């Protein structure tokens, strides 16, 4: 224990002298500013709707005004309508012709709208038309919720699990490599090898430092963005275990490379694979089996559950057990690799 504390103090001093803490503080501030002030709570890509009412007697205008359409968005002259559409590239035009009994709509698309938006527009117009005709039907369904209703997660806050997974947890993956290559350059690792402290202490010291940095980084970022009313116990457990896992992975990969630039090629490969679960996170309907096997998948969704609980009980427990087993296996591999490769000439 005395030797571990000694090495831990030494490694901490080296990290501080290397200025790695400033990089972490800088990124943390950037994340907090992004989440709180830059990224909006809602992402809306709504087109401006411009109307040209060419029905006889302009019968649609009162309905449109009643539906909340602003007067200046309703045109009575076709040329003005087209000119306004051409000037505003985000606009979508709707020409209404015929009579109330036989009204026809023409949608003028800029060809930049998503097909989803155009279809929504079509459905909305059809609904308006049915209301005018008095043929609208009542919904033939109702919704029952199994759990307590949760409020929607704001878009900016929904990104916090992504930042926690790929900034906070992945911190150790890169920083341990920086430290290993510094020691390789200095040759100090050989001096360590001929002391009576072994590979286990060497690994543990570095893992503990980067895990502590991840915990501080994660807690500061979380408190500054979502406050205190979340499941901090599970959040901390997840940060600690996932950070240990990623730090050990970084150590294992870095052992097989001679310098940081060689390592970065492999590191980017590993990080890209680890980031694939973000696709499923942003588009939940896309969740093929192989993505669920990537360790960062449950970490990402675990963070969301800890931050914005949906009431799922014991959601994290099975995964935490798997993560602990993974850490055990990685530690054994690291121990073997450090002894056989890193500490040998």
């Amino acid at each position: 224990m005395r030797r571990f504390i000694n090495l831990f103090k030494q490694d901490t001093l080296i990290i501080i002298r290397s200025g790695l803490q400033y990089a972490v503080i800088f990124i943390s501030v950037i994340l907090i500013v992004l989440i709180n002030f830059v990224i909006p709570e809602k992402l809306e890509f709504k087109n401006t709707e411009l109307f040209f009412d060419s029905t006889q007697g302009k019968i649609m205008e009162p309905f449109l005004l009643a539906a909340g359409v602003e007067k200046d968005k309703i045109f009575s002259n076709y040329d003005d309508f087209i000119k306004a559409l051409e000037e505003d590239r985000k606009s979508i035009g709707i020409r209404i012709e015929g009579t109330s009994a036989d009204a026809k709509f023409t949608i003028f698309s800029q060809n930049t709208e998503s097909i989803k938006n155009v279809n929504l527009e079509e459905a909305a117009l059809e609904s308006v038309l049915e209301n005018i005709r008095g043929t609208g039907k009542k919904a033939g369904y109702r919704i029952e919720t199994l759990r307590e209703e949760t409020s929607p997660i704001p878009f900016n806050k929904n990104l916090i699990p992504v930042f926690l997974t790929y900034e906070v947890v992945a911190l150790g993956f890169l920083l341990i490599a920086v430290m290993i290559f510094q020691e390789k350059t200095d040759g100090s690792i050989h001096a360590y090898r001929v002391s009576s402290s072994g590979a286990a202490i060497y690994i543990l010291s570095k893992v503990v430092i980067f895990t502590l940095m991840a915990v501080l980084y994660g807690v500061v970022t979380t408190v500054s963005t979502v406050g205190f009313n979340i499941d901090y116990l599970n959040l901390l457990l997840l940060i600690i275990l996932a950070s240990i896992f990623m730090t050990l992975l970084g150590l294992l990969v870095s052992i097989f490379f001679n310098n940081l630039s060689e390592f970065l090629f492999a590191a980017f490969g590993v990080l890209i694979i680890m980031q694939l679960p973000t696709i499923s996170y942003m588009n939940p309907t896309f969740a093929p089996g192989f993505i669920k096997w990537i360790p960062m998948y449950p970490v990402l969704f675990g963070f969301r559950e800890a931050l914005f609980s949906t009431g799922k009980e014991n959601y994290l427990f099975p995964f935490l057990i798997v993560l602990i087993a993974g850490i055990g296996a990685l530690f054994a591999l690291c121990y073997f690799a450090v002894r056989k490769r890193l500490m040998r000439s």
Partner: protein
Amino acid sequence: MIEVKNLYHRYEKKGKDAVSDVSFSIEKGEIFGFLGPSGAGKTTVQNIMIGLLGLQKGEVLYDGKSIKKMKSDFYNSIGVCFEQSNLYTKLTGFENLRYYAGLFNVPTLDPMLLLESVGLKDAAHKRCGTYSKGMKQRLTFTRSLINNPGILFLDEPTGSLDPGLAKKIKEMIVGLKKEGKTIFLTTHNMYIADELCDRVAFINEGEIIASDSPRNLKLKYGNKSVKVEYKTDGKLASEIFFLEKENDLNAFNKIISGKTVQTIHSQEATLEQIFIKLTGRELV
């Protein structure tokens, strides 16, 4: 006692052995010099002896116990001064020693006293990334002493030092021997070996070609010579003659009888001359 028996080592993707059938022994309290030019296999043998390289073939025994069976506590009893100054450049000289001391399970020496002993007290709190090559070498030397080891492996301990500092380190090595420490000194500097070592082994291209005390090597392989300084055409000239050779003896007699001799000194062959005689290779 340290015994190295029939040691072989071959690096990956190399066609020949870096070390081949190397055997020697070192008595307790002895300074054993391991001499050879760069690339001869000196550091490979040392690295096998301290466990930095795996044992492929042969045996290294410490008081009869194999290096393969040594646990981490073995490192409490040895000190290694590497040729490359492998220090933590972000730490000060004092911190390098203090934290290194904390890695051992035995009582350690006072870092500041050690720094003082090699003239680094004033630079103790400067980051060693700013040290000169010589300062780094002295710090690396003191680090090898921090756990007060019984066995020392010193790889070119005076390599980057000016004569004054080299003398100080040599005096310290002699002092360590007097304390009863066993010292394995790896060098290509034959003068230091001659001055310090009880016994030496010459290694060339991975093989030991001779091993004995410097005196016995000189008696066995060295030819006595005479250095003469004389005046010829108003200028001072100097020549070395090996009197066991007939041609040299005749030339020597000719100068003695026909020239104005200024000085005349008999001299022993140096270890370097013996090494060249045995290998045809210089110690660079």
